[in-house]
């Protein structure tokens, strides 16, 4: 699969590109007749010939983009490359059918003081450090100016060079944040139609795993591949260890409800209760049910889940609050082993994050 510009890549971008006087950044900005999920894929081509990333899974499209990137490095001028694919070519690069893809190729100077692209991504990094999403807008036919917008539609930095265009872009950016994917839109202005690419950036999902058992070990391992952070929480010091959780970003031993409350779970956090023990489930649910946590799931049968919900209802939690708990946790894929259960849980976390109904 073609790589997207992840938070990790974004953070490391200046280091990755250091030493290159000029780099061409290629972005798949539109894909008609094919899966729009590929939009946002990136490739960087340095003056030295170095290549990082890819706009597709390889093949003829990337080859054509590399040629265009070499020209951009030499000329210093951005270009929009349109590539038509027949069905066979489309299959080769992982798209479902033929059509047209468009790749924006732009020059940037990694070691320069004021590269507008890197400056915009710096603002995105700052937003994500505050657990906020951000959208970077740029016209496909313009000079490369960037407008960075926060989830409320407020301008973080930059301009597209026209107040009316900025205003329209801010409105679209809000829907881009909610939609979960980058896309190109046409904006009608008094001086003609302008095509603007909206690139969505969101902080990585943090998986707070309560209960450091076998399922938790699989969750933490798979989370790394999914570019999620994993945080292990348990009251048992012999379970929550770095030996058992080498991929965990954080390991906390103590009162789980206190630890989870301290972590202050927000909308980019998934709290996953896999302790299978009410001693942690009830206090952690009390601590999270009224938080803005993005996902809340609890391992256990439907009957057990109903019993826990009832106890919390007796304490005054509303039906709406209790409906936030996904139990039984995970997608119904017939999971039996700890690793399979972890896959089903992560599938549900991803589905919830993407706004897809999971039915639990």
């Amino acid at each position, binding site marked *: 699969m073609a790589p997207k510009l992840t938070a990790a890549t974004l953070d490391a971008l200046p280091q990755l590109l250091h030493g290159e006087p000029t780099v061409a950044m290629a972005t798949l900005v539109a894909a008609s007749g094919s899966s729009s999920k590929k939009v946002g894929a990136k490739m960087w081509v340095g003056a030295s010939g170095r290549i990082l990333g890819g706009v597709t899974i390889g093949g003829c499209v990337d080859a054509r983009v590399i040629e265009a990137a070499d020209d951009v490095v030499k000329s210093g001028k951005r270009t929009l490359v349109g590539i038509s694919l027949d069905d066979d070519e489309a299959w080769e690069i992982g798209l479902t059918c033929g059509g047209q893809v468009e790749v924006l190729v732009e020059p940037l100077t990694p070691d320069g003081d004021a590269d507008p692209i890197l400056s915009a991504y710096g603002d995105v990094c700052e937003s994500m450090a505050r657990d906020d999403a951000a959208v970077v807008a740029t016209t496909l036919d313009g000079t490369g100016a960037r407008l960075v917008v926060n989830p409320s539609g407020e301008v973080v930095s930059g301009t597209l060079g026209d107040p009316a265009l900025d205003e329209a872009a801010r409105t679209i950016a809000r829907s881009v944040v909610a939609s979960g994917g980058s896309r190109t839109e046409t904006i009608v202005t008094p001086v003609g139609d302008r095509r603007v690419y909206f690139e969505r950036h969101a902080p990585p999902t943090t998986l707070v795993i309560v209960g450091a058992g076998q399922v938790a070990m699989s969750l933490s391992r798979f989370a790394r591949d999914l570019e999620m952070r994993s945080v292990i929480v*348990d*009251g*048992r*010091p*012999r*379970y929550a260890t770095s030996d058992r959780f080498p991929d965990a970003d954080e390991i906390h031993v*103590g*009162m*789980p*409800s*206190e630890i989870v409350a301290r972590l202050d779970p927000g909308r980019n956090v998934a709290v996953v209760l896999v*302790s299978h*023990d009410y*001693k*942690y489930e009830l*206090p*952690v649910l009390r601590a999270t049910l009224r938080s803005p946590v993005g996902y809340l799931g609890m391992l256990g049968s439907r009957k057990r889940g109903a019993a826990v919900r009832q*106890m919390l209802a*007796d304490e005054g939690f509303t039906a709406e609050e209790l409906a936030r708990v996904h139990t039984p946790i995970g997608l119904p894929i017939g999971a039996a082993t700890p690793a399979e259960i972890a896959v089903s849980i992560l599938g549900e976390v991803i589905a919830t994050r993407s706004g897809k109904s999971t039915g639990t």
Partner: protein
Amino acid sequence: MTTYRDVVLEHFRHPRNRRTLPAADVSIEGANPLCGDRVRVDLRIVGGQIAEIGFTADACILCVAAASLLTEHVHGMSIAEAGALADDVALQLVGGTVPAPRRKCATLPVDTVRRGIARFIESAR
């Protein structure tokens, strides 16, 4: 007739003094590291007596019930007396014979109170 089970379930479902004390003189956590029971006890001590006590627990039914019963028992007690409470007091409070493997669940709260008082006395010196 009220049974051991009834008492424990009642205090688990409706724990007394389950709260944190913002102005606590001592806030101390106790743990049974193998089973994972965790209890926090907050004490406000005035004139050598336990003026206020609160607890929170990520713990099993027996441990939560024992903490609830204990907080009622020691409220108003002198710290000298509370600091010398034996484990057997906690076992008696839950109202029945606690199976040997579960004794630590029932005695974790009293052990935590004892350590809290010891810490308070130490810090007051």
